[in-house]
């Protein structure tokens, strides 16, 4: 039996009604449709939610899956769990894609709701009781801790997708799906978790610096070296820079982050180091988080393209170090870390007309 899995994406807004991601989509559901999924088409209390829903409509990830009809016809909690497990892997890849594309981690959809909608002409013809059951009870669904909250309002989105974002987001989704085996490694998962936690509400900027620097030090300086701060900043900058001329600028930014972490470890006041910062600490951390996403994406792309390279045989670190001392070092690095991807992946802030103001995403 084919059915649609519809997962609410908390705090994601988009200008487009539909964003095509290949074999899945990000869609808008009319309020009446959502009521049917909830089995509340005749509910006065639910009707009152229309204004809030329609003013700032939530977005859903829609994926068509083929399942054993037993999972749908026998409406048990165990079967709902099985259905949820079927889409779990792709949902993780989508969450990563949204994070790495937009630079801010979304609230994980697991906290929200996923609906499993079997309604189609074919299914309703074959299983005559399906319509009546759905009309009374709604479709099978899995609620997270936020239950229906994010599916009923989207007043304060944290990720705003413009029309121009559709294609690059789809490309990023393809990338995260293809490289899933790589980013699940513990070393990358640690960095990815740190980046995700940087979007945690209430976490102050010093703690975000701690998280980021600790995670990336583990990636870029896995063994102790002399001049750790300089090595960390340089290797990180090499992965982030698109042109050789940018290297020293990014290295300066990253040295500052390392210095701040060092100040915190040693209990030193941060004021002296903060004087070297020309923007607010909050803006600085937002930029460093984006750099972290860029670097992690490139590392994962490299590792995916070179699956047999590991440990002491990996040339990447020595190539990173050679960029400073060899005239063609930067070119050698770009050749090493570029992959067989047909088109390079891009991040939202790199796309033309890059400024994204969530207020620009008009309510419908």
């Amino acid at each position, binding site marked *: 039996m084919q059915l649609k899995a519809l997962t609410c994406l908390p705090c994601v807004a988009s200008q487009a009604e539909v964003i095509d991601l290949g074999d899945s989509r990000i869609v808008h559901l009319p309020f009446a449709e959502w009521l049917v999924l909830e089995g509340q088409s005749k509910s006065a209390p639910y009707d009152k939610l229309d204004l809030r829903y329609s003013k700032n409509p939530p977005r859903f990830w829609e994926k068509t899956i083929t399942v054993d009809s037993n999972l749908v016809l026998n409406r048990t909690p165990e079967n709902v769990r099985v259905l949820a497990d079927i889409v779990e892997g792709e949902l993780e890849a989508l969450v990563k894609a949204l994070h790495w594309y937009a630079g801010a981690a979304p*609230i994980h959809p697991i906290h929200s709701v996923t609906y499993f909608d079997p309604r189609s002409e074919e299914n309703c013809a074959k299983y005559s009781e399906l319509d009546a059951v759905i009309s009374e009870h709604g479709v099978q669904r899995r609620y997270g*801790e936020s239950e229906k909250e994010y599916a009923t309002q989207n007043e304060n989105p944290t990720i705003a997708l413009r029309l121009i974002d559709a294609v690059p987001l789809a490309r990023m989704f393809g990338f995260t799906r293809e490289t899933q085996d790589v980013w699940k490694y*513990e070393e990358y998962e640690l960095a990815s978790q740190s980046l995700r936690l940087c979007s945690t509400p*209430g976490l*102050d900027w010093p703690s975000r610096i*701690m998280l980021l620097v600790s995670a990336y030090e583990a990636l870029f300086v896995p063994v102790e070296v002399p001049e750790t701060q300089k090595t960390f900043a340089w290797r990180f900058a090499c992965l982030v820079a698109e042109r050789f001329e940018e290297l020293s600028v990014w290295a300066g930014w990253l040295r500052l982050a390392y210095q701040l972490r060092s100040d*915190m470890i040693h*209990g*030193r006041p941060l004021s002296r180091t903060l004087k070297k910062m020309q923007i607010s600490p909050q803006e600085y951390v937002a930029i460093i988080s984006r750099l972290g996403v860029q670097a992690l994406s490139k590392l994962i792309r490299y590792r995916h393209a070179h699956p047999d390279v590991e440990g002491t045989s990996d040339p990447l670190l020595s190539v990173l170090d050679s960029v400073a001392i060899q005239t063609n070092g930067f070119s050698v690095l770009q050749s090493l870390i570029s992959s067989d991807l047909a088109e390079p992946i891009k991040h939202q802030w790199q796309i033309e007309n890059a400024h994204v103001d969530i207020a620009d995403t008009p309510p419908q």
Partner: protein
Amino acid sequence: MLISQILRPNEIVRFNTPHYGLAPIAGLQMQDNAVVIGDQILLRCNRAEWETVERGYVFKDWHADYYNANPVFLFKPFDKPIAAESFATASDDLARDAARVVTACRLYKTGRLLEPIYTVRILVTDSFFHRVVGPYRTEYLAMPVDGLTWCLEANEAQDVGLVYENLKIMQQTEGTDPLCAVIDQFNLSHTPAVPNYFSVSVLLTATEMLFDGVSKRVALKTTRYDRALQILRWWIRDGLDPAFTEFYLNQIHPLRNAVQHHTLRNTEIDLAEVKFRLQVPLMIGIRLLIRLYRTEVDASLSELKQAHGWQGLGPKDLLNGCLDRGACGDPAPLQELMKLQG
């Protein structure tokens, strides 16, 4: 009539102001209806009060179970209407104050709590409701039912209040960013849905921040883990579980290596237990440091500093110096610190 008034006819909304904020502290349980922690009011709302603020949210399943959850809220009364342009600030204040209460509780004893920034904060002004929701929206109801709690006993409120007050003073003192960052890391290790291996990594970093990076003038003879063990021995004394000694003497170094080599997830170590063993010295150390950052306390320790040549050194250096001497057999410096317990 509200459903709750039919079932429990004597329950009414007790708030004496139409302008207030409510923020649940998920996991917190108490017997009394109201408790004061520092300058904050904790309230065990009855169902009428809860329904009044949550009625805009379809919570049908929870109505019958409300008293099984019996959630506790931070209650903040306002004497004037809350202007719409002040909602964001008022919500942030609720989050900050509740987070401080939660931190004080976590530093006092172990248990499960979740800050309202993850669940919900509600502002009510003249029957207008403003809600800020988080990803763990209903956890303040679910956690107590699941037994994930932190129980505030009647005789503990004063001590928790003391921790809260010290925390508040420290957070308002200049130059305490590093200690605030340690506290953030400590709180982060309690965040739900963070895997244990990540929490362990965060806690090891916090341990390093608290017990490492000490001035060379202190002339340490012990390692950071020796000092973490010493703080446990000094605080808990004869009641210290031998498993802590075993952990800090023999298990923590291989654990640290596993973190550095990214093999922690593949071990058979009970990471939940590791978290506990790492959290306890941090709880004690943070509470002591919070006291040491107070300027009047710093002044009272000038003799101690002079005796050891530690003049001009900060609270963290002082704490580690005392722990180092204690671990090496000289209890006198720690006894000076014992006078500051709070």
